Each structure stands twice: as C-alpha cells, then as structure tokens.
C-alpha cells in the first residue's frame, strides 16, 4: 500500500439547470478537470473565491455527490458511487467538517448521541462502549465529560466546531475534508481550532483536505496548495512554491488582495495616508 490516501483524476462536475418555459436548459460546469493527490498525514489546501467549485469538490470527495466524470481513488481503491454504490467501509474512511457550526449539529440531539451516532450506524458496538469512546473523543478535542448530556444550543461556536470535529473522528477516518472549518469563528477561537486540528493530525496520522479562502490560515496549516478559479485548478504545488512564486495571474491577484494586519504594514499605511493628506 502506497502512502497516497486520496487521488483524484480529472474530476468533472456539471449541473444541469432545467429549462423553464422561456429559458433554455443549460449546463453549469462547477468543477472542470481537477486532478490532485494527497499523501498520508499531509494537508492539501484548496483556495479560491466564492462559487469557484470548492464546496462542490468537497461534496464529491466526501462521497456525498458523484462526479460527472473522472476517477476518485481512496486508499488506492477506486470509488464510483454513481454506478457501483458505496461500500460502508469506504464511508468510514472519509468524513467532513462543515463551515457553519450552528447548522451542522442536530438541535434535538444531545452531544453524546451526536458522537455515538456514527458508531451506532456503522458498528454493532454495545452502548456502554460507544459512550466510553465518545467520552474519550470529547476529551481529545478539549471538552469535558460533563458536556456529554448537553444539547448543541448550550455551546459556543468554537465548542460546537470541536464537537463537529469529534464526530468526524469517531469512525477513525483516514481522510478528513474540512470545508472552511474556521471561517465562521472569531480569530482567537480560529487559532485554537487550528491548533487542535494540527494536534489531531499528528496523533492520528490524519490527512486533511482543507478548503478555505483565508490565505493566512492556509499558510499556517497547508503542505500543498491548490488554487481554484471558475472550477479549474489554476495552480497546484507545495505551499512554499505557491506562496513565494505564484504563476497564475489569479493567484497573484488573490495574494495582493489579502488584507495585511501586521504592525509594520499598518504603520506604512498610516504613513502613506499622512503624506497624502
């Protein structure tokens, strides 16, 4: 078995928009010919503006939607949910964490049930063992056993995102797709969650596909970076390559558009303002 956890070859996803009475049916190409591969324990960051196909790609990688064309290999096994269906052991290998921690937890489910549900569905583990595992996982993500019997509405955004991460890890997946996992959180909590993700990656040898539009976050967590623009992967390389020497014009624009908040650049901006005034 090689070290490649995820490999995508020429993934294409089209959406057919049905025509109305006066409009023609048309096809939207959400993802065009995207190929990449991720090795065990590494993080691939997918960057791009809103509507460029990032989340569509995430849904394909988590085996929620089928690609229109192209091949997807998970742990060197070809997955084809459109025709061959999805074997349950594949389902366990890929899990997802969503952007909005307020929408991704069932409001009527206690945290314990949220964490136990994947085990309940996928294994025939007795309830006591499920509880023990959920408790352990709660502690791993920095929450306590006293949170086991609480409902999602009793938690803050950062805590909820930890719960969502814990749920994703319950089945010991090898690949975790993180769909903008920190963009709904405030900055200090972002840092906590990112550190947690980094720790968990070391502990479980997890592979991340990290979707984001926040370049500072990407610079912190990514090993490889793929830049998407209108459904195409316009740039793909290691983090240092992409950040130090962007090739595509869109990538350059993207980097230039990142607001800078370090003290030096703020001073420089104020100085510029002063001279202009």
């Amino acid at each position, binding site marked *: 078995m090689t070290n490649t956890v995820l490999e995508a070859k020429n993934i294409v996803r089209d959406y057919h928009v049905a025509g109305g009475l006066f409009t023609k049916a048309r096809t939207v190409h959400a993802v065009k010919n995207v190929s990449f591969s991720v090795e065990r324990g590494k993080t691939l960051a997918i960057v791009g503006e809103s509507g460029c196909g990032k989340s569509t790609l995430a849904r394909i990688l988590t085996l929620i939607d089928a690609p229109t064309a192209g091949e997807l290999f998970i742990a060197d096994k070809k997955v084809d949910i459109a025709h061959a269906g999805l074997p349950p052991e594949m389902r366990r290998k890929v899990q997802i964490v969503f952007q909005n921690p307020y929408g991704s937890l069932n409001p009527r489910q206690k945290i314990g049930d949220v964490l136990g549900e994947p085990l309940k569905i996928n294994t025939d583990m007795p309830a006591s063992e499920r509880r023990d595992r959920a408790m352990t996982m709660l502690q791993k993500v920095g929450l306590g*056993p006293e949170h086991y019997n609480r409902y999602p509405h009793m938690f803050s955004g950062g805590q909820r995102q930890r719960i969502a991460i814990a749920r994703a890890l319950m089945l010991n997946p090898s690949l975790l797709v993180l769909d903008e996992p920190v963009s709904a959180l405030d900055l200090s909590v972002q840092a906590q969650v990112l550190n947690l993700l980094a720790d968990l990656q070391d502990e479980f040898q997890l592979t991340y596909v990290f979707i984001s539009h926040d370049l500072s976050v990407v610079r912190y967590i990514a090993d490889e970076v793929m830049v998407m623009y209108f459904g195409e992967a316009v740039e793909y390389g290691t983090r240092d390559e992409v950040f130090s020497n962007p090739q595509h014009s869109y990538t350059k624009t993207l980097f230039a558009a990142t607001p800078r908040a370090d003290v030096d650049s703020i001073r420089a901006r104020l100085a510029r303002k002063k001279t202009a005034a």
Partner: protein
Amino acid sequence: MSTETTAVPPKATARPGAVAEFWYYFSMNRGAVLGLVVFALLVLVAIFAPLIAPHAPNEQYRDALLTPPIWWENGTAKFILGTDAVGRDILSRLIFGARYSLFIGLVVVTFALTSGIILGVLAGYFGGWVDTLIMRIMDIILSFPSLLLALVLVAILGPGLFNAMLAIAVVLQPHFARLTRAAVMAEKNREYVVSARVAGAGHLRLMLVTILPNCLAPLIVQATLSFSNAILEAAALGFLGMGAQPPTPEWGTMLAAAREFILRAPWVVTFPGLAILITVLAINLIGDGLRDAFDPKLKRS
C-alpha cells in the same frame, strides 16, 4: 448537569429548560391557558362520565317529555338542563357526548397525522416524481369543499361513526402532508442532515430520526386545530344524518334530532350547540397559544 462526571443517566428527561421556556411563553397567552383549563375539565368529565351523569344517557322518562331546564318555568331539579322529545336527560347525554367528541377528535387526528406525516416526509425527502404524485393527489383532495367530500365518502362507505371519522381523517390529512413536506424540504439540506448522511445513516434513519423531530412544532399546532375541526365536522355529519346514528348521544346527532323543536323547546337545540362551541373554542385557543409559543418570531426576549 453540573460537574458530575461519571454518573450519566441513561435517558435524561427532555430539556427541562425548553419545557420551562415553552410554558413561559404559553402562559403569557391568557386565552390559551383558559382553553387548556376548559379542555382539561372536559377530559375529566369524559373520563368520569358514568360517575358524574345524573341519569343513563339513553333512559327515557316517559312522564317528562321536553321538560325545560331548571331555571325555566316548570323546570325540575331532576333534569338540570331539561329533557328532549323522548324524555332523555340532556345533561347526561351531553356528558356522555363529550366522550364521543374527544374520541372522534383523537382518532381522526391520529389517522390524519400519521398518514399525513408519512406522505409528507416521503414527498419532501425524495422529491421528483414521488413528490409530484403525492402532492397532486393532496391538491385534488383539497380542491373539494371538505364537508362535501366527507359526505361523499360517507355515502360510499355507509353512514356510521367510524366511517365518518375515516372520511374526516381523509379530508384533513392533506394539510398535514403539506405542512410536513414543507418542513422536511427546509430541513433536508441543512448541514446536520448531510453530516448524518456522511456518518452512514440510511434513508429511513435520516427521515425519521434526523429530520422528523425537527419538523414537529408546526405539526403539533396543526394537530390541535384539526382536533377541533374534526369535532366540528363530525357534528356536521351527525347533523346531516351521516355520522353517529341515534340513539348515540353524539352532539351533532343530538342537534339533528332536536331540529323540529327549535321553537317549542329551544333548550334541546341550545345546549348541544353550546357544548360544541365551547369545546371547539377551547381547543382553538390552545392551538393559538401553541403556535405563539413555538414560533420564534413571536418570542419576546
């Protein structure tokens, strides 16, 4: 739920905070509380009918036909609300009639709710042609005046209390199906549903365990309002001779039998009518209160 770490109750009671909050908003609505009190009294009356009623509901006092109520001229304390044309005590019949009305409401709402939820969840969850098929059938049912459709159904099935209940359930059921479908469609694409899917939940689990509990609030309100609707329609069918058959002490049937005496002995018509009015009003008030308590937009914080 404080700092206790080891002893986790296997099944704790439903959110106490939520119940308290619900009661707070519900009790803000005076009418709803009044309705609840009246309804509770009605339930007690129905349960203990044989103990409360002064006479048997079908016993005919041949020497006391059309006796007026107690505060009228010639009224006697033996028949507080008077007697009807064949000498049966109206109060006792009303008390026993409460059993029928509540039973009708309960059975009809259970039927309509169950079938409506099943159809609505299927339509909302699967969409496509399943949705189209189910909802067009619902539209057809809704396009008939409800009482007329119930009448037709009873005419086909044959008059009787059970057939009347069945017909009313069929007529009320599209409302539940529509409501469920709308709620399921709204919840279906929420991220927690996708999460459950990624966790491996099948269709049945997604529909019943993940989505349905989050759609219940509007359904509870609709169920309450349908409860009174069912009583009203059963009374109407009874009045038209298609519902409960005499001598059943059902309120609508009592009204129908008393129609001839509306001028000579108005009390025979008045009291069953009042009973229906008060019951339906009480339940509608409860339904309004429930809607206010469940609707986050109406909450004052």
